[in-house]
């Protein structure tokens, strides 16, 4: 794709997003916010999984830290404005990642996954059992949602789903853009080197544990932003909703189905799952059967995911056009 087409494509995407609530109504507007939350969350996981090669079974703890951080802050600090509330979620997840990073950067592979499983489940049962702080199974709900105060324009109510749509999309889009930008920086390139050959990166003079820690903290913090927006959107954070083991697995399946290692893969994967879920709930109650079949079929027939599948189709077509071009040349010659 050349540069002009790319600009046109992005302009079309922005125009679509701008008129989306008017075009599709309240139900699909809310659906899109959920999609955007999980897309940003899955992208943050893919930074670990696809770019750095670290499989985590407990990414939900950062998502949950963001959600609980924002919810607790709004509940206990009267008159807290919106942006600081989200920043509290962001920093809660960041600090959690910072605390865990010295431990996590020295393990890789299965041990990394299992340590995250242990701490993720520990956070989950703690949130479930420390009822006075977290509300136990009921979670924290009906905390006040402050309006967005923009100097010069006034305050915009966030209880209106349409306003929240624009606000959420801007924050989550910004997060995704920042993560994309991060992968393009020299540090983001070192990250890929860490996945492919950590020893060589070490010999090149980079500090491997410290680099990993920076990546880890960035991934955790953006998962926190996604969790924070999710909490605000639902006006509820609950153990199973933001900290459960399924919340940890969702971005992994999204990433693999969308295309591991590709930046936009997780976004595609989230979209695919959401569309399929929307369609299946209309016709059948067996959503889990359909989801299970998709996962098995993807692994058996398209293990590189949606993006990988598209790329291989494109390559095959390119190869065929090259072949046919050379054939016509032969015929002419």
């Amino acid at each position, binding site marked *: 794709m050349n540069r002009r087409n790319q600009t046109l494509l992005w302009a079309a995407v922005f125009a679509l997003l701008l008129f989306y609530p008017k075009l599709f109504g309240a139900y699909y507007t809310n659906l899109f916010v959920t999609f955007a939350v999980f897309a940003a969350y899955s992208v943050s996981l893919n930074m670990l999984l696809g770019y750095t090669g670290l499989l985590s079974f407990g990414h939900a703890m950062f998502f949950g830290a963001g959600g609980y951080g924002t919810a607790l802050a709004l509940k206990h600090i009267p008159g807290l404005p919106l942006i600081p509330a989200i920043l509290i979620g962001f920093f809660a997840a960041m600090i959690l990642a910072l605390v865990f990073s010295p431990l996590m950067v020295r393990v890789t592979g*299965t041990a990394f996954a299992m340590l995250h499983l242990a701490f993720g489940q520990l956070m989950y049962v703690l949130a479930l059992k420390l009822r006075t702080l977290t509300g136990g199974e009921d979670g924290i709900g009906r905390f006040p949602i402050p309006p967005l105060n923009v100097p010069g324009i006034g305050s915009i109510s966030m209880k209106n789903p349409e306003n929240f749509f624009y606000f959420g999309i801007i924050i989550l889009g910004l997060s995704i853009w920042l993560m994309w930008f991060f992968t393009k920086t020299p540090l983001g390139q070192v990250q890929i080197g860490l996945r492919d050959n950590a020893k060589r990166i070490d010999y090149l003079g980079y500090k491997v544990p410290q680099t990993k820690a920076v990546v880890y903290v960035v991934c955790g913090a953006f998962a926190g932003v996604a969790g924070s927006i999710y909490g605000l959107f639902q006006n509820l954070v609950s153990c199973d909703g933001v900290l459960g083991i399924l919340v940890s697995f969702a971005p992994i399946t999204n990433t693999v189905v969308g295309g591991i290692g590709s930046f936009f893969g997780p976004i595609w994967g989230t979209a695919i799952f959401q569309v399929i879920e929307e369609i299946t709930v209309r016709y059948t109650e067996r959503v889990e059967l359909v989801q299970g079949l998709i996962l098995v079929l993807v*692994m058996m027939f398209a293990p590189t995911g949606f993006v990988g599948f598209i790329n291989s189709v494109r390559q095959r077509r390119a190869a065929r056009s090259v072949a046919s071009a050379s054939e016509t040349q032969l015929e002419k010659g």
Partner: protein
Amino acid sequence: MYITQGIHGLAYGMVLFLVASGLNIIFGMMGILNLAHASFFMLSAYFSYQVLTTTGNFWVALIVAPVVTAFFGIILERFFIRKVHASGHIGELILTVGISLIILAAVKIFWGTESLPVKVPPLLDGLAYFWGMDYPIYRLFVIGMAVLVLAIMLVLLYKSRLGKIVRAAVADADMVNALGVNVPVVFMFIFGIGTWLAGVAAVVIAPILTVFPGLADQVGMDAFVVVVTGGFGSLLGAFIVSIIFGLLNSYGVQFLSQLAPVLMYAFMAVVLTIRPMGLFGERE
């Protein structure tokens, strides 16, 4: 009082061990991340319910249900897992999560969502009285069963020719293959034994927990934690950690009813922080 509590804890720990020992062979030794293991456990519980309602004989169920489950496990290994094993843990994770979702849906379609009661066989019903205490016979039977399985597995893996081949194949599959052993068939067989163990555990636990679709989640996570904490490929580690978790569970409920589940994960987190390969594991 404390002793009865201890027996309950031990019985739960032993069930955990039965499930975990199968997972330990599949995940710990063969290195296949099988998140559908607990689903096979649940499937076997339903099979045993079905056999019990048709024949009414617990012992028939104990023989038939695990074998049928193992058959399904072998199909899974032969036609699915083998193809994605090369792409590492992530492929196995996605595949087996998919399989577990399918099993869950299938169970709901065939048997519904309500929990089905399973009766304790009359021979093992009631209480045994010795040393001035009453013990429920069935729980003693569960404990005995687990010890028997541990003994059989230890003999099979460390004393038999098959065990030697398996351990060698796990260490270096190509070399063993070159020596004329059909390694894929050995792996398929071992995977079958692993699911068979889960099946036995399910038949044994069904009268205690009843049979319901949430069974896989309840026991599966605990079994997974046991394997990871005990150390990959270490049956002894799994056995000891199962006992610890069983006792933590029953005494924890008694003394710190709020925080009993926290203890288990806290124990796991501490162990993995100090030894990422688990308590008795030799490799990561």
